[in-house]
Every structure is written in structure tokens, then in C-alpha cells.
């Protein structure tokens, strides 16, 4: 796979990751992103995945993969044992997103988290019309969706502030698949995908693990 085949958010994230760093990819899917990072950035690390089909795909790529349910926490990993803990479009499907965020910043020096932004104008429009949003990034109907904890960029900012989490950088992917880093006009309205680079204000050791 070449970089062009990566999802726009993955291209963004790859720019943030230093060469030779240690990466933990939560919900790593078929391992293609980690595999690409290993190839282009010389990173080492592991993917965490729950689906056996994806685990087989990871093994076929030669990516280290650990079978685990993220809802059961990340107790097997020591504080500060990774440079980056990455979680793309998974937080919204977690039972306790706030506790998982704490865990991410306990394990990693930095966390990189992406989620489908419920504040996007297409979602707001559907709400205004009295419907639960169904979009390209949120294709499921309300009764069969795995996404049980949807939020907006403003909601996520509030959560970070309340848990001592510093937002180092934020980027968005808009509906034209453009990845935009830095200051953005009306991000909560324009972002289909929100991409956050975060750390705990006092470093990994200070981030509490979920109770």
C-alpha cells in the first residue's frame, strides 16, 4: 500500500508521528496503517483488534496484533510505554470513552484520536429535519449502529478540558476529503472527521487509569 491509498485522516496522523517512535494503534483494523508507518517511519508497535478476520489480515501483513476488547481497558500496558497511542473512529463506539481517553494518555506520551463529528452541517441538517443522521461516515441506522457515544468537536473540547487533557493540535477532514491542519473557520460545522493530537497536562504518569 502506498501513502496515497491511506485515508485522509491517516495521512494527517502520519505527519505527526516521529520517525522510529513506538506506536499503539487501538482498533487497528487490517493493520494497513501500522504497516505503512513501519515502512515509511520505521515505527515499532502493536495493533489492538477485536475482529479475528482483521487479526488474520494483520498477521498476513506482518503487523504485531493483540486481540483485546477496548471496553475492558488497557491494563496490560504500562504507563508511558508508547510515544503515540492512536485511535481512529473508534471512540464513539466505546462503552466508556472518557475512561479510555485517560488510559490512552496513561500509556502514551501523546494520544491521537479521531471521530466522526456530529456537529457537521449534514448531521445538523438531518437533526433539523427530525431524523437521526445517516452519512458517509455514519452509515448505520439508529437501531443497528455500533456508535453509542456520538459527540461534536465542541463536546470533545469540553471533555478534554474537564479531564486535564491538553489539545496539542487539531485537524479536520471536510466533506471534500480535504485534510486541514491549523486554524480553521467554523471547524465544528465543517469537519466530517475530527482529528485530535492530545496529551495529559502533567504527562503519562499523572493520567489515571479507569476505575
Amino acid at each position: 500500500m502506498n501513502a496515497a491509498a491511506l485515508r485522509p485522516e491517516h495521512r494527517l496522523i502520519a505527519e505527526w508521528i516521529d520517525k522510529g517512535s513506538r506506536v499503539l494503534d487501538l482498533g487497528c483494523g487490517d493493520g494497513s496503517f501500522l504497516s505503512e508507518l513501519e515502512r515509511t517511519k520505521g515505527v515499532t508497535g502493536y495493533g489492538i483488534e477485536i475482529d479475528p478476520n482483521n487479526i488474520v489480515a494483520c498477521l498476513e501483513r506482518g503487523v504485531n496484533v493483540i486481540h483485546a476488547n477496548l471496553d475492558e481497558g488497557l491494563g496490560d500496558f504500562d504507563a508511558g510505554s508508547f510515544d503515540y497511542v492512536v485511535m481512529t473512529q473508534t471512540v464513539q463506539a466505546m462503552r466508556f470513552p472518557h475512561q479510555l481517553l485517560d488510559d490512552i494518555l496513561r500509556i502514551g506520551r501523546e494520544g491521537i484520536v479521531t471521530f466522526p463529528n456530529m456537529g457537521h452541517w449534514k448531521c445538523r441538517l438531518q437533526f433539523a429535519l427530525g431524523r437521526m443522521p445517516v452519512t458517509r461516515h455514519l452509515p448505520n441506522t439508529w437501531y443497528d449502529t455500533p456508535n453509542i457515544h456520538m459527540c461534536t468537536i465542541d463536546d470533545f473540547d469540553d471533555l478534554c478540558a474537564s479531564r486535564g487533557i491538553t489539545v496539542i493540535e487539531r485537524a479536520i477532514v471536510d466533506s471534500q476529503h480535504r485534510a486541514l491542519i491549523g486554524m480553521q473557520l467554523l471547524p465544528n460545522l465543517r469537519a466530517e472527521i475530527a482529528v485530535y493530537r492530545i496529551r495529559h497536562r502533567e504527562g503519562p504518569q499523572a493520567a489515571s487509569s479507569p476505575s
Partner: protein
Amino acid sequence: MPESLPADSVGLVEPRIAHFTTPLALDCGAILDAYDICYEAYGTLNSARDNAVLICHALSGDHHAAGYHALDDAKPGWWDNCIGPGKPVDTNRFFVVSPNNLGGCGGSTGPLSVRPGTGKRYGPDFPIVTVRDWVESQARLADEFGIESWAAVMGGSLGGMQALQWAIDYPARVRHAIVIAAAPRLSTQNIAFNEVARQAIRSDTNFHDGHYYEHDTVPEHGLKLARMIGHITYLSDDVLHTRFGRELRSGKIAFGFGVEFEIESYLRHQGESFVGRFDANTYLLMTKSLDYFDPAQRFDGNLTTAMERCSARFLVVSFSSDWRFSPARSREIVRALLDCDLDVSYLDIESDLGHDSFLLPIPDYHRVLKAYFGRIEVAG
């Protein structure tokens, strides 16, 4: 009798004997001056000698892992579903070596062997061998082949423990360790079950303190009981229920102690067929090897410290319904490997078949093995 063997079988195989005359100092302090290792080998060792896979067997296994000894064999080797052309351990690519462990009763030197200079069998005087001793003896077998490093060392249960010990004892000689349905050491409950099995054998009046060969008897009853209790721990409650339920053989309760429930019949059959193929002294030895296995012990009980010396890549596999060596025990191994920043992949296979799952061709399990072996690099 089958007219021909399946195309994905390694075919007809013959056990071979490697004789060793360099004394082997065992963990227990005893020294074996000379010994035999009985083994089978499948596939072809390449000229770089880097495509060899060592298969380590479990408690009641032996060297006959794949293929058939004769066309009219009722069953192939114990891991035939996993080893062969096109199978997860693909003998078109790999050279597979499967030894019988020292102390075993499949042809390697053990309690059944005649003790040099005595004309009598070792019997109960055969020294208790440990997993480390097996690794040492298997390393010498590798030397015989000129195999500097195994492409993979692989095993389930007690076999997985050998793979783990290999990676610790010979970091430079194991490129991949595949540890299936194992544990970093036995739990108290595991030891308790083993002790019941041992007492069943030792309290059989035909046991004669292990000298039953001289009395021309076999502690059949005790060995049968040992196997019956072992078998219960190999299967899950669910699978026992599904397979046997509370079915009565004659359809109604007989108010007696004969075989009534199907499960009773099954266990008795398992016990009886085991007596014909396994030696009681070996069973005692193997359970002791299990009980003693604890690679962390030499490192202040810290498994992470024990694993720090490893350089192999690891695949760890557990089975959801295995309560003998549960998924949590495999995760202890994974955790230590993660602490050491070693390459490791782990999968817990959904299965209701209990500990015995590791012997069965469960689709996800074999897909994972196949994918993993597919990435192991060997010279052309």
C-alpha cells in the same frame, strides 16, 4: 483401509532414533550417560538449514504428529490437521521435526527403557525430567541436523511451555515461538488435578511402587482414572453438555453403579483406550514436569525478567472455553512480552471445546497459524 492417503497428508512416515552418547546433566542432579530420542520428520531441510520447525508435544503426545505409519492406520498423527502440504505448517516450505520427549513412552529413553548395566527397565528410577531438560535434549537433536536456529518452535499445552522455555534458554536459536493454550506456570488448581491423577496411579495395587513391569502387571485401573480426570479438564462444561447431556444409555435410571449416563461410558472408554497406549510411570513424570515448569523462578519469580533475554517473535493463542490453561494465563505471557517490547501477536479463539481445542481444526485458529507461518522468512 483407505486405498490411498489424502493429498494433503505427509503420507507414510517412519519414526527414527537419534542416539546420544554425550552425558546429559538433568535439572534434578541426575546424569543420563546415553539416551535415545525418537522422532519423526516431514518435509525437506533446505540447504540454508533455516526452514526447520520443532513441534513439541503435550502430556500424552508423542513423536507421531502427522502422517500414517501404515495404510490401514485408523488415525493419522495427533496434529495431522495442522501439519502437511498446504496445511498451516506447510511441509512444502518447512522441515518439521517432531520428537518424543525424554521420559516418554513412545520410543525415546524413559521408564520403559532398559537401564544400562542392569538388564532391567528404569521404571520408577527414571529421573524426573523438566521442560528445561527437554529443551536441552531437543537442542542436541537440532545439532544433529546442523540446524543453527529453528524457524519456529511450536506447541500446545505442555508443548507451548517448551516453546516458551526454548525462547528463554536459546534466544539465538528460535526465530519464532508459537505458544498455544499454555501458561507461564501451573495454577494451584492445575497441580491439584495432577496430584489426584498421580494418586490414582500410585494407589493402584498393581503399581508396586512403579516396579509393575517386574510383576508383569499394569496399574490399569489407576492410569484409567488418571486419564478420566484429565479428560474432564480438557473439555468444557458446555461441550460435555452438548455432546452427552444427561442421556441415559438404556433410556431410564437403573438405580445402580453400572454405566448409566453417556458421559460415564465416554470417560471409561477414554480411560481404557489410554491404558493400552501409555505407560503409568511416564504419566507420573509428565505431570511432575508440568508442576515444576516455572521459567520465572530463576528470575525472582518475575516472568518479564525471564523473557528479557528472548529475541524470538511470538504468536500466543488461547481458547475462550479453556479452563485448564485459560486465556488469562496466555495473557500473562503476552503481558511479559509487551513489557519487554518483544514482537508478539495474540489471539483468543472463540471455541466451546475447552483445552482440547488446540488439537482441532477450528477455522479461525488454523487461518491465524497459516497467516503467521506465511510470514516466516526462509531461504528459497
